[in-house]
């Protein structure tokens, strides 16, 4: 330690001090000049971050987090209202807005919740859907579904961060953390049994029986652990709002289990229910009950061409909206 001290305070000391002094002056000048420049070219934050700020200003009471299920309308539907519009119409006494986009999931909802609390925004209700497919390798490991930009902005948003956000973008702050190669080589499980790699599943073409079985395994059949990062995020959301005035409504998104049973037999429903029970038990420990709609809808209310998914036709959306309305009004 003595040597170290002697080394630093040698004859170079003044030069080092001069260097640091100049560096700090340069940094201050850059910050000062960047203030007007950032007004000319303001930081383009992701839509979801901006919308939360707007919702706070508008004092929106119900925030609905969701993936693409929220905005989907079947081409044959008579009524073209999506899930959000339906819920809004059912609850005219409340203002309802969504923060939703394709492939959003709990790992993003948690930083959103933290962001709202940090910004002193406390809506009356937050709806948190849990899509069982979001835990699959197909979704969870997909480089396009990591949302690094949203997560970074939600985590670091501040005056200085916005001031230099463009610089951070230029220096690849939002670079994908998962490569396509890593994604393609990540394992797929059927239950807990290894069932190949993502690359064996992503390029399946033609919905024949064999491919349909594979897709269903790919989407839904891996067993979920309570250590999964998305379950951890759900747990953290529950803990965040445990003693607050904000009601959190967790529900498990309905999925087309009848098609699953058709191709994979009864084990499909069993796996889905086992996975749902993992989520329910984790959240129950935190004092929350979960609306489990995973196996509550028939196959004919799902809207899909080619492969099964969770998009709903009018009847399905209507059922889901009513369930949510009941839960919201019952708890208030």
């Amino acid at each position, binding site marked *: 330690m003595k040597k170290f001290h002697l080394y*630093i305070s040698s004859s170079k000391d003044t030069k080092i001090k001069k260097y640091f002094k100049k560096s700090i002056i*340069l940094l201050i000048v850059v910050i000062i000049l960047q203030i007007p420049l950032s007004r000319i070219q303001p930081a383009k934050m992701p839509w979801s971050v901006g919308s939360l700020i707007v919702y706070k200003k508008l004092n929106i009471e119900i925030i609905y987090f969701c993936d693409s299920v929220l905005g989907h309308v079947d081409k044959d539907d008579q009524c073209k209202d999506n899930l959000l519009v339906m819920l809004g119409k059912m609850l005219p006494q409340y203002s309802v807005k969504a923060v939703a986009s394709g492939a959003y999931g709990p790992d993003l909802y948690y930083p959103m919740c933290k962001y709202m609390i940090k910004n002193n925004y406390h809506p009356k209700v937050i709806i948190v859907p849990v899509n069982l497919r979001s835990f699959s390798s197909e979704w969870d490991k997909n480089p396009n579904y990591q949302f690094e930009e949203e997560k970074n902005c939600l985590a670091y948003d501040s005056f200085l961060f916005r001031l230099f956000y463009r610089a951070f973008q*230029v220096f690849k702050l939002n670079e994908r953390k998962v490569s396509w190669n890593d994604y393609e080589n990540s394992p797929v499980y059927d239950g807990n049994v290894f069932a190949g790699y993502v690359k064996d599943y992503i390029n399946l073409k033609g919905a024949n029986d064999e491919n349909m079985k594979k897709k269903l395994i790919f989407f839904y059949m891996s067993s979920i652990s309570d250590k999964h990062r998305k379950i951890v995020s759900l747990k953290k959301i529950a803990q965040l709002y445990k003693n607050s005035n904000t009601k959190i409504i967790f529900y498990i998104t309905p999925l087309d289990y009848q098609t699953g049973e058709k191709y994979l037999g009864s084990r499909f429903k069993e796996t889905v229910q086992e996975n749902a029970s993992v989520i329910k038990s984790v959240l129950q420990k935190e004092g929350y009950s979960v609306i489990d709609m995973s196996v509550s809808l028939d196959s004919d209310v799902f809207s899909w061409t080619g492969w099964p998914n969770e998009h709903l036709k009018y009847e399905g959306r209507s059922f889901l909206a009513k369930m949510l309305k009941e839960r919201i009004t019952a708890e208030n």
Partner: protein
Amino acid sequence: MLFNSIEFLLFFPVVAALYFAVPHRYRWILLLVASYFFYMCWKPEYAILMIISTFIDYWAALQMGRHKTKKKRKKYLIFSLVANFGLLFSFKYFNFFSGSLTSIFQHFDLAYNFPTLKVLVPVGISFYTFQTISYGIDVYRGVKEPERHLGIFALYVSFFPQLVAGPIERSTNLLPQLRQKHEFDYTRISNGLKLALWGLFKKIVIADRLAIVVNQVYNNPAEHSGMTLIIATYFFAIQILCDFSGYSDIAIGTAKVFGVDLMMNFNRPYLSKSISEFWQRWHISLSTWFKDYLYIPLGGNRVSAWKLYRNIMIVFLLSGLWHGANWTFIVWGILHGFYLLFSLWTRKIRSSVSDFLQLDQFPMIHKCIKVFITFNLVSLAWIFFRANSFSDAVYIITHLFNGFSIAPSGILTKQMFMCCIVIVPLVIVDMVERKQYAIDFLAAKPVWVRQLVYLVLIFAIIHLGIIEKIPFIYFQF
């Protein structure tokens, strides 16, 4: 870890601060750990190859050092060469040759699939392999004493500023500097950082912006007119210069902070008056490597005409292959070799034409003509380098003069306009550097001018820098 990443912006100052905080005898450990960390950020397993290469060359050089005669040293040199080229071939070229053989067999209706290896090309393998090979050859020739300190030698192989994209350093230049004690030198550090800033500007503002237009055109050449193809080709010429020389400037600048002077890698190559001059100014560390370790051992130009032609073609064929395991790179190399042969064959004719036109009386015009022709020949060859396939390259060349509409879409036109603007600083620096280095030129200016220039560069990077990820072109080599 990329130079133009947040990680590097945090990593570099920390390493630099620690470097001057720790006593000299521990600095090699710090730099070695930092270099391996830097490299392992891509894929940790890549480091295994570098470790293998380091041990092989360290051991082979020590063995060579024990023997006085070249004859006895030779077997160790051969061992080192076989090991290094073996690794390079396995990871970079095996699949290319295997695929090419399969295609040839298929052409003759012989159904045989040669095996392929499921491996990714490790980042920078061509650079550090050539660096270690040059060390082995230098020790064999007796130019360099073998390095006995394994840690210092490992640092020579892995020194992070120049590890993944050069300059390919010589042991005679780098190894002594890694042993030397470097004091905190304000001017040196300041100059290093300024050079790195200029390198970042070239990469982020110029090269990446040009890449948007180039990628759009070269990924769909059939959708674009001749004029757009020409502009995209010129843009690529500038893009690859700014991309690679930008990387070299950052490498040289950051190494300077640690007191290490790396060799110059670019010297205004597009102002060359001939192809041979171009190769004395472009990727100097590679072209001198080929000259010292291949061209001269083959006999250089002190041989019969046919052997000279052979030597030139071998060097450029291998130079093309060094750049990538693809026929487009090979054709690019061969084309440059052919340019050189053509210039040798036509020397007298060109001299006669010059005399006839009395160009010697107008040296500036003569020089401009030569620079123009050289730049266009180089740009023509870049088509093969950039094209996605050989057939794309042929399509582009055969359609360069088809149609003169500038661009099919407004976006592309706007991008082209922006590209022309961001190139201006490059032209200014090239003009300044005709007489002296830009840093020296600036140093003579008043302090407010200097600070203004640096601030303009910083804010240009922030506000004009490209957000999309566009990797350094030479990383793939």
